[in-house]
């Protein structure tokens, strides 16, 4: 708490840690040793649950994964993941969000933190926790108090003007996924334009265009997640 350069304290060691207002760093609680938490957000129907399912299929053999889903209506997404059998049932839990999915991932993250911590504690060996948001709008980003990295998902069928419109999700997510590129010709969307518009808004942060339900559709995203997980694990080891 005494880390402000040039701000010295003239007291003996027994005086205790008297953090004055100048000393307080407004951050989240310590993260030591826990697994990386990655948020998957984006509008309704963009393919968040499909992405989580595909990532689990791709990564479950190499990483111990836990999944927390957020639904507007009860536990549909968790049920879908369990039904697809992408992870053992006990590795998936659902949080109910009281009509407001963005509140649960951004403004009041209590219920999600409860679920994430309980799941990580119970499983013990988790290396990657995926938190899937309920389908929401372009402004819905995850709190840094809940996740360490976030992926924002949009899709070609939602309109190719979406990246140009921007918003916190598109501009600030650590990874932007433009999903359902296989549908682009059928809905009159220009994938190249979407990627170009998105890149312009993202100051160099990565953009991936893919179709996550197709063979190899999730490869590039899985590689990004592997890299983030590896960096996190070595930094907190």
């Amino acid at each position: 708490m005494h880390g402000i350069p040039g701000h010295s304290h003239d007291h003996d060691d027994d005086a205790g840690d008297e953090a004055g207002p100048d000393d307080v760093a407004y951050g989240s609680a310590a993260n030591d040793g826990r697994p990386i938490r990655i948020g998957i957000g984006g509008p309704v129907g963009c393919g968040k649950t499909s992405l989580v399912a595909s990532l689990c299929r791709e990564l479950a053999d190499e990483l111990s994964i836990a999944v927390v889903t957020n639904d507007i209506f009860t536990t549909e997404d968790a049920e879908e993941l369990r039904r697809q059998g992408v992870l053992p049932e006990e590795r998936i839990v659902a949080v109910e969000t009281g009509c407001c999915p963005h509140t649960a991932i951004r403004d009041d993250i209590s219920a999600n933190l409860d679920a994430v911590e309980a799941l990580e504690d119970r499983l013990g060996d988790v290396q990657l926790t995926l938190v899937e948001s309920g389908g929401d709008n372009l402004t819905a980003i995850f709190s840094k108090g809940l996740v360490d990295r976030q992926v924002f998902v949009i899709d070609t069928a939602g309109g190719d003007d979406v990246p140009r419109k921007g918003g916190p999700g598109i501009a600030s997510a650590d990874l932007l996924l433009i999903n359902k590129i296989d549908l682009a010709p059928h809905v009159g969307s220009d994938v190249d334009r979407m990627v170009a518009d998105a890149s312009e808004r993202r100051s160099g942060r990565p953009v991936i265009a893919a179709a996550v339900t197709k063979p190899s559709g999730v490869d590039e995203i899985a590689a990004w997640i592997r890299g983030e997980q590896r960096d996190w694990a070595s930094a907190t080891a």
Partner: protein
Amino acid sequence: MATGALALLADGRFPSGGHAHSAGWEAAQKLLQLDDTAALRSFIDGRLATVGLTEAAFVAAIIHRLDASVSIAWGEVDAEVDARIASPIARRTSRSLGRQWVRAARSIWRGESLALPAGDGDPHQIAAFACVAAHVGITPEDAVRLHLHHLVATITTAAVRLQGFDPFAIQRLQFDLLESTDRIVDDALSWQRVPWSELPASSGPLADQLIEHHATWDLRLFQS
């Protein structure tokens, strides 16, 4: 300072998990077909007069003891609160919200000596809330008023989200409730020095049953 702290804790943006709950309204509204603001008002009146008074009396009594530095037998408080909540689902909800208050408190007032309910499991919401209120210097009277405000606002917010009521009409409804709320505040404060086991034990059996029913639904928007 205490008034400022009161405003912080009164703000619905304070992150203590309440936004995902309807305090029984979703169940009552759907099962009893409560479709207008008159029914909403009746439901709130009922909750205030029953669980509202019971919880408020505990809040006042806890803060009174904390302010007077009287040691609290938290196990006894816990058991007495438990005994006043008939529905196991409602008990679980109360503890889950209590855990979220503890989380908020430990994170926000990190490094400060903060009296929180002692014990192995998660505390009830009112116990954790009362500790936070005492820590930031809020009086028993203001804390009780605040707790009742949150009870009412949890219900009205859910009603606005579920049924699209006019938000101005809902604020007027809440304003009109202040007079009857004052009487409950006075009543609750009169129990501050009374032993835990003798505190009010009003509850609503129908509301408890509705809460149990709600937990079995496949599709619901609120956790409770």
